């Protein structure tokens, strides 16, 4: 019995149990939790069976459905099951008494089932089947938890089903070209394909995965879709869901097509396929990151970063050197941890205050210190500053871009980072710093079951920052298995060569700096503790009657600068397409006029037109 079947069966069992016992609180909470724990345990043990293949004799066009365990999917399985477990723990308290709990765990299991199936599959058809299960469960995840949720879920779904359909063409086209759905077979035959066909096929797959991983300009579904649902789902979705698209890109770019084949794809003499891809990745980094500045809702803000961070991973992959690819892959887990940490912190605040509106929060640092710490760790990681893990992977990526001669892309990455820093500062400031609104005076820190996942993630975020080698070992194995060069790594970073990086030293320096700052702070401490209203600004004394809150319109000045460049082309295009479909459908409906004579005329018209068309055939 392979672990694969165990994983899939347990996830499926979770779905079935939750459907059957939809009234039982125990099944919903504890049985589900137990199953998620088992899933995490099993997937951790998958490394013992790397390379094993498992198939179900299930005939479709003469193929059976197959799964295999590779280092790449081991890496993803760990992330999926880990994050699901943490979400489940966090949800214990968070979802208590909420209406959506009836199907909350069902869709969570369904989604996990779908994602595990996608990453473990060893042939296109299995991949596609689970891909569909995954996007349908994402749709049902998104449909719950708020008034706006159904609408944004529908928007997501339009993108997802488009992606699926494109993917389906790719799947079937591969089958008709190679006579097999199997990844290995396709990989072995890929070189026999003509270059234009290879390019077409690859583009089909990449476009499809790009939609799912919210690459510019197909990203607009993500922020709304992710932020309108339950905040725990937001964590789950932003953490792993989009990254399955990246898994697809890695798998097809490096695993199936192979980087040598991809590098043969050149248009106009010199423009490389990878470079085009990189440009889109760069746009994905910059535009969403600056859009995040505008958000007044913590969930929306962080959801925009979910788009932007994907750009870093992709641009790392696009550089296609060992450092860049490992940076891209490493960034996935780094991103996952700090992003989920941030959303958990937001969820905690929401749990206590009932809002995620940044204009209404503030000053919670004293009331919810653990959540503050969690958010702080998270945003340091997100901004890519030492000593947290985000720094390491971003550093890899910058370095790789410069090394492969893509300086513009590197500059784009830096610009993206500036935007990130600006917007995450807004996040932490507006939630935890500044004035505490009166109504939140009685707020307490969240309970332990919600703190626990945050503590775990904080440890990981910091730990992977100091010891990136923990993940690099696995990434090196992935790169080897994909036939790529490996970065020489040590426990603290990159071992040798020009790009040496020792995170221990950096952390030590950073800590040293922090200590110095602390000492200065202590020495110069001459401050007086006053009531928050015993304060003044611009000559005005602040009191309860003065509605002054500088959390409001936090970046008005910067927004003023950016505004002229925000053309909202994407929004307008989307609206145009929807309008077009609407108009076409209205016109098509008008064919059915309800007038019987017209209908009869249609019959003869069809007859005559057919003759006109076909008379050449005779």
């Amino acid at each position: 019995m392979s672990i694969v079947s165990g994983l899939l069966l347990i996830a499926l069992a979770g779905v079935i149990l939750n459907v059957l016992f939809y009234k039982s609180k125990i099944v919903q909470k504890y049985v589900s939790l137990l199953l998620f724990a088992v899933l995490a345990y099993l997937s951790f043990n998958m490394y013992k069976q790397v390379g094993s293949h498992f198939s179900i004799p299930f005939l479709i066009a003469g193929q059976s459905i197959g799964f295999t365990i590779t280092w790449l999917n081991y890496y993803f399985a760990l992330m999926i099951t880990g994050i699901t477990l943490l979400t489940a723990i966090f949800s214990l308290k968070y979802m208590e008494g909420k209406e959506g709990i009836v199907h909350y765990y069902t869709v969570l299991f369904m989604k996990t089932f779908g994602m595990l199936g996608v990453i473990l599959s060893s042939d296109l058809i299995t991949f596609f089947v689970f891909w569909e299960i995954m996007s349908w469960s994402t749709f049902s995840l998104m449909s719950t938890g708020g008034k706006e949720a159904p609408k944004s879920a529908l928007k997501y779904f339009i993108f997802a089903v488009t992606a699926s359909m494109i993917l389906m063409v790719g799947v079937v086209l591969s089958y008709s070209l190679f006579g097999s759905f199997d990844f290995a077979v396709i990989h072995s035959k890929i070189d026999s394909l003509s270059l234009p066909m290879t390019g077409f096929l690859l583009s089909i797959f990449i476009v499809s995965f790009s939609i799912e991983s919210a690459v510019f300009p197909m990203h607009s579904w993500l922020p709304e879709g992710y932020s309108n649902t339950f905040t725990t789902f937001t964590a789950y979705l932003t953490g792993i869901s989009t990254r399955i698209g990246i898994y697809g890109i890695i798998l097809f770019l490096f695993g199936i097509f192979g980087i040598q084949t991809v590098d043969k794809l050149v248009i106009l003499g010199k423009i490389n396929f990878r470079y085009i891809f990189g440009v889109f990745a760069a746009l994905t980094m910059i535009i969403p990151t600056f859009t995040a500045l505008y958000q007044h809702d913590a969930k929306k803000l962080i959801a925009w970063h979910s788009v932007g961070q994907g750009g870093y991973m992709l641009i790392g992959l696009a550089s296609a050197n060992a450092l860049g690819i490992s940076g891209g892959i490493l960034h996935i887990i780094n991103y996952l941890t700090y992003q989920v940490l941030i959303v958990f912190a937001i969820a905690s605040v929401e749990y206590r205050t009932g809002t995620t509106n940044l204009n209404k929060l503030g000053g919670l640092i004293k009331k919810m210190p653990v959540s503050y710490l969690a958010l702080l760790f998270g945003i340091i990681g997100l901004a890519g500053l030492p000593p947290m893990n985000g720094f390491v992977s971003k550093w890899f990526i910058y370095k790789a871009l410069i090394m492969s001669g893509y300086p513009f892309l590197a500059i784009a990455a830096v610009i993206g980072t500036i935007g990130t820093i600006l917007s995450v500062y807004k996040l932490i400031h507006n939630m935890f710093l500044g004035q505490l609104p009166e109504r939140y005076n009685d707020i307490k820190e969240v309970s332990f079951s919600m703190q626990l996942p945050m503590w775990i993630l904080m440890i990981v975020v910091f730990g992977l920052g100091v010891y990136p080698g923990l993940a690099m070992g696995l990434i090196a194995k992935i790169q080897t298995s994909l036939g790529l060069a490996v970065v020489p790594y040590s426990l603290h970073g990159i071992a040798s060569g020009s790009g040496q990086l020792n995170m221990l030293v950096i952390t030590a320096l950073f800590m040293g700096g922090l200590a110095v700052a602390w000492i200065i702070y202590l020495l110069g401490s001459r401050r007086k503790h006053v009531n928050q209203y015993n304060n003044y600004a611009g000559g005005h004394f602040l009191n309860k009657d003065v509605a002054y809150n500088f959390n409001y319109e936090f970046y008005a000045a910067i927004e003023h600068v950016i505004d002229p460049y925000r053309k909202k082309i994407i929004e307008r295009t989307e609206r145009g397409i929807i309008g077009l479909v609407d108009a076409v459908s209205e016109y098509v409906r008008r064919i059915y006029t309800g007038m019987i004579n017209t209908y009869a005329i249609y019959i003869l018209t069809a007859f005559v037109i057919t003759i006109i068309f076909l008379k050449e055939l005779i």
Partner: protein
Amino acid sequence: MVNPILLIIIPLGTAFLISTVAGSLKNSTKYLAFLALLANVWISISLLPQVLKHPVNVIIAGIKPPLGINLLVGPMGAIFSIIISVAGILVLLYSFKYIEGEGQSKYYTLFLLLITGSQGMILTGDIFNLFVFFEILAISSYILVGYAGDRNGFEAAVKYLILGSVGSVFILVAVALIYQETGTLNMADLAGKFASVASGKKMMIMLFFITGMGVEAAIFPLNSWLPDAHSSAPSSISAVLSGFVIEVALIVIIKFVYSIFAMTEILQYLSLVGVITLLVGEFAAFNQGNIKRVLAYSSIGQIGLILFAMTLNSEAGLSAGMMQVVNHTASKSILFLVAGYMIKMTGSYQFTDYKGIAKKMPVSSFLFVLGVLSLIGVPPFLGFFSKLNIIIAALAVGNTFNTVMVFLILLGTIIESVYFLKILQIFYIGDPIKGGVKEAPFTAVFPIAIFAVVILLGFLVLPEINIYAGSAAAELFTKIQITQVF
């Protein structure tokens, strides 16, 4: 061996019997109808292994085929018989509680005659006999569409009747011309003799036939009656009309084009028409508020897809088309049957009035979801595999035309999933609607659930389905039926 003619005779005889005993048995005549269809299911299933080995030729009145009428049952006929009988009996079961009021026995008589007509059209080996059964099918459909006796029902029935009759004029012209040109009415005989007809005449005869039959098969633009008829009929009848009646007419067209006219030149044109039909159906459904009209337009879309698959001029395409027929029968029946009780419970045809109905009718809504998923083609439902097979078959042909068509089909699928999802969201999200909305009775839920089992567990017997669909496809494609008759 059981004589396949019983497939036609049993429902027909029972219809007469019901008319005889309706006065004394009153509403219990429905059980007679049920028994008749049960016998039909059994016969059609027991026929299948037989015909897979060798097509069955049933002579009538002891007269050898070219002179008399015969039935030709190949794998395709047997499979369609099973589809008709099984879907028929399930919908009949649903009707037990759904159809109320006096004079129910007439409904069941008509229903049996509709089954008779469909079976006859599939099984017969004689083109004029085909026309007769076509008329039986068509007339019983006209009546059943107007059965509810409301204004919309009558309007739809009148439209359906007039257009259907124009169609039957075309068919009859084709039959007359065929007899004039070849001097025979027997399909097998005709397949041999038709080749010698001048190509211009051949084309003309074929066009008459396809146009006439196309009215019933709902090919665009001959399908203008369909949205009205399918949306105004009682839901059980809509399920049957969408479920197998249009498919029966379509399969007759396909059978004629491949086996009898043997004019593969026009297949590409027909597949283009199929894709246009699909797009028209899906786009027309997109902004529709009446749930049954949505389903009716979606049937147009599906019939376009089936037409496309079956005109790919390959065995794989035909086989995929057969699978899609099974899928469409099951899933569209689910949708119509569920919609029937939703309309009955809420009194409204607008699906926007069904907010949160899933809380009141959980089982029905869940079955509706399954139907939608299979119709759109979501794995692991049967609809996914049929759609996948269709696309595989289309791309296997390997020309640009088919690739473009595939993209258009997928565009249609996107539109289709969006409008269905809008409905599903309304079912599941929002506060439950007020009023005495409650779950449909068991006699309604049970048959719907059986349909759902078909599409849900279809993938378990996928190899078998592939084999049966494949042999049906082979029958049409290689004309074994035609050559082995005499």
